[in-house]
């Protein structure tokens, strides 16, 4: 009995056509008025190559989130002091007992026992959304601990903000297809992949150099060194203040070694800037002219109007860039003047515009692959793949004769679908990914071997060709499903745990095997059936 295979053949042709289009795109088809792209270029345009093949830089950064937490709690300390002063509630100090290990804890000490409940309600009124308030009662001190949920979301927000900022900065470099995303394996880590960059220094200085830019109130200084600073403050630096080194400020006439005592809580933070542009002041010195956001502007006005005649410092990274005296209330416009080079002014404006990083960054890992190594890897990978495919194909022809052609055709279609999938999905092909393709060839041919061996057994048992083919496929199918599922399970786990190149391996292996189900079972079966249709009674299957 002959089977009608037209529908099945049409399906196979359609699937193959889709994936061939996936590999080559439309550009290789010679349209009128448009020269077709060469085959090789059409392929390389469609298939995304990983960093290890095209060359580029791969960075893993860690956001020092404790800095953002510290900035937030420092701010709260400042607000608590103001609030309590405004409410005429006395206290000896508000500070953070352990900013390094527990940046989320604030301590308030020396309130008067009879006012304890007033202090408590003042604190709870304003801060109970973000903080757990404990203490008070008979005691004169309170502890505010940031709530775990608030803390987690602050950390998350900090990482997200850092990602946005890095993306903005990387965009100014004109890198094509950069990857900037949270790196799942660790806490507060960011993965940055920059194809085509093999000189990291420029990128790193842009990403990292000014981790933060803030304006702080000056509490004292300049001092010659840390000892002098300590001495003039009675040997102790108050907990809500910090020392910072200057760096050749012009505004206040100090050298780069001078030390300033600053209030910890900033007046203007890194993300309060709305715009910033390079310019010059009336004396012709280069400066950066900035505008603050509305909210920050109000806060700044409030501060400057109350503190005319006081000094404030521009803190860049951990160094004081400029110290200026407040002449009059300022709302949202200002300028930062320092001994800047033209490049610095340009860079600083760029950094202010893209927003400061909410916290500084540590490099945990960086890898660069030179373009020459990438090119060599492609060559080696492709050679290994071609040799592997040819060896397998020749062997199948010798061992299974006519059916070997069937297997080889299935294998070839398997590769076409796999590559087409890579083109369509935009998945990245890495060097281990090429290894995955090669393994797919080896493991994919397994399905054919399973089926053919089974058909041989059935033929030996005396079955007619069509029954033997039928039984062979039916029996082998069970095994094929089991073997594919287990391999795909291990590939899926690799995908979840692996990074860049290894992920690429998991992707090609998985889709290679899925395509294999189609080619080695469905396509192979159709070819067999077509062959059976043409056979005369008494003919044998060539296997």
């Amino acid at each position, binding site marked *: 009995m002959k089977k009608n295979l037209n529908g099945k053949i049409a399906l196979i042709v359609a699937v193959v056509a889709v994936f061939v289009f996936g590999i080559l795109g439309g550009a290789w088809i010679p349209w009128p008025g448009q020269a077709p792209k060469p085959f090789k270029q059409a392929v390389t345009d469609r298939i995304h190559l990983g960093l290890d093949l095209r060359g580029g830089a791969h960075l893993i950064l*860690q956001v020092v989130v404790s800095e953002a937490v510290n900035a937030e709690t420092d701010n709260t300390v400042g607000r608590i002091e103001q609030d309590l002063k405004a409410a005429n509630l006395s206290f000896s100090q508000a500070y953070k007992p352990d900013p390094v290990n527990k940046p989320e804890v604030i301590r308030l000490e020396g309130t008067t026992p009879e006012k304890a409940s007033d202090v408590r309600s003042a604190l709870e009124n304003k801060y109970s959304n973000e903080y757990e308030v404990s203490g008070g009662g008979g005691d004169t001190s309170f502890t505010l601990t940031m709530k775990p949920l608030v803390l987690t979301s602050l950390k998350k927000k900090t990482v997200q903000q850092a990602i946005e900022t890095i993306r903005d900065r990387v965009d100014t470099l004109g890198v094509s297809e950069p990857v900037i995303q949270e790196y799942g394996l660790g806490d507060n880590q960011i993965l940055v992949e920059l194809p085509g960059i093999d000189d990291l220094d420029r990128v790193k200085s842009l990403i990292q150099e000014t981790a933060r830019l803030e304006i702080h109130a000056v509490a004292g200084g300049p001092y010659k060194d840390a000892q002098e600073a300590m001495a003039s403050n009675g040997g102790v630096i108050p907990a809500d203040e910090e020392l910072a080194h200057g760096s050749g400020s012009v505004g206040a006439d100090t050298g780069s070694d001078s030390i300033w005592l600053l209030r910890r809580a900033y007046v203007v933070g890194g993300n309060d800037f709305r715009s910033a542009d390079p310019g010059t002041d009336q004396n012709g010195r280069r400066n950066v002219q900035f505008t603050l956001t509305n909210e920050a502007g109000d806060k700044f006005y409030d501060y400057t109007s109350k503190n005319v005649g006081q000094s404030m410092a521009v803190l860049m990274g951990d160094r004081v860039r400029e110290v200026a005296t407040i002449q009059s209330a300022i709302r949202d416009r200002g300028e930062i003047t320092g001994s800047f080079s033209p490049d610095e002014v340009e860079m600083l404006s760029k950094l202010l515009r893209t927003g400061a990083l909410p916290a500084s960054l540590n490099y945990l890992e960086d890898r660069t692959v030179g373009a020459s190594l990438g090119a060599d890897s492609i060559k080696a990978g492709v050679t290994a793949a071609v040799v592997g495919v040819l060896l397998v194909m020749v062997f199948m022809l010798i061992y299974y004769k006519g059916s070997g052609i069937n297997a080889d055709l299935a294998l070839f279609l398997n590769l076409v679908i796999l590559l087409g999938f890579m083109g369509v999905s935009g998945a990245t092909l890495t060097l281990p990914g090429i290894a995955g393709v090669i393994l797919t060839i080896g493991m994919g041919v397994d399905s054919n071997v399973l089926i053919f061996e089974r058909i041989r057994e059935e033929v030996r048992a005396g079955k007619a060709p069509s029954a033997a083919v039928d039984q062979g496929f039916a029996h082998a199918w069970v095994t094929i499903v089991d073997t594919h599922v287990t391999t795909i399970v291990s590939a899926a786990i690799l995908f979840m745990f692996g990074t860049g190149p290894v992920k690429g391996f998991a992707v090609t292996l998985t889709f290679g095997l899925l395509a294999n189900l189609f080619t080695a079972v469905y396509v192979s079966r159709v070819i067999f059936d077509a062959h059976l249709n043409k056979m005369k009674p008494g003919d044998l299957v060539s296997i």
Partner: protein
Amino acid sequence: MELFRNVNVDWLGKKWYFLSFSLIFSVAGIISMGMHWAQIGSPVPLGVDFKGGTQVELQFVQTPDTNRIRQAMDATGIKDARIQAYDAASKNEVLISLPEQQNETSLDAGQKQIVDTLHTNYAGNAFNVRNVSVVGPTVGKQLEKQALLATLYSMAGMLIYLWFRFQLIYGVAAVVACFHDTLITVGFFALLDKEISLTVIAAILTLVGYSMNDTIVVFDRIREDLRMSRREALSDVVNRAINQTLSRTVLTSGLTFLTVLSLYVFGGQVLRNFSFALVVGILIGTYSSIAVAAPMLVAWQEWRARKGNAAVLPAAKRARV
């Protein structure tokens, strides 16, 4: 062409040979891992991915003189650098590694220092930086943990799948076989002092899948044969199943081996350890499905029989297809 026809080998009768073969390799691997542990604090030499540190791969225009590079390094005070020729000699490549930096902020200094030093002190021979890897201690530790977890999860995932498709004992036997393969493959890395990198872990996970494949093909056949001949002794059924699938086992392994060998020979230096793991693993994985997994099934049944429980291996669940 047919290589195996009507094979009739008593595989289970050779189980003591198999056991001693597996034991020799496992124990040799474990001893070697122990020695590494005593020396470097980890059972196998770890690549920069896990160990952390700085690794710079340079390609020189002329044949590089490692002694002069060493002198150039010494002159700038980089004392702990390891300098080795890399890949084929004709490629003029040198790999310079620095041990892990404890301090994450100084991570980057090493690489720049190496390049600068060579520019000043070994100026006669121009070079091209091919590859730089700088890995801090945090990332290395994370990866180490993740790699271990990934291997364990993948075995657990398969155990569950086989439990569901066959019976628990089939799953256990297959996972033991996989573990055996992983142990011996890692043992080979320890014995030959090869470094384990992230891609090698990927290779090992692939092996887990591959070895599982081989085992399943045999198990599927055991299940099928058991259904047809319930009176026969289990060991006879298992022997027959192995013999029936032998042709396929040898063929598939041979073909996969061919492709992996091609990867090992032509795939370049970057993938050398990766393909080495596959070359070893495919041989061991094929061996283990015949020599470890199947005998375990039979041993378990005999043990149950001695305990007076049901003598027959619980009939495997029917395939749900």
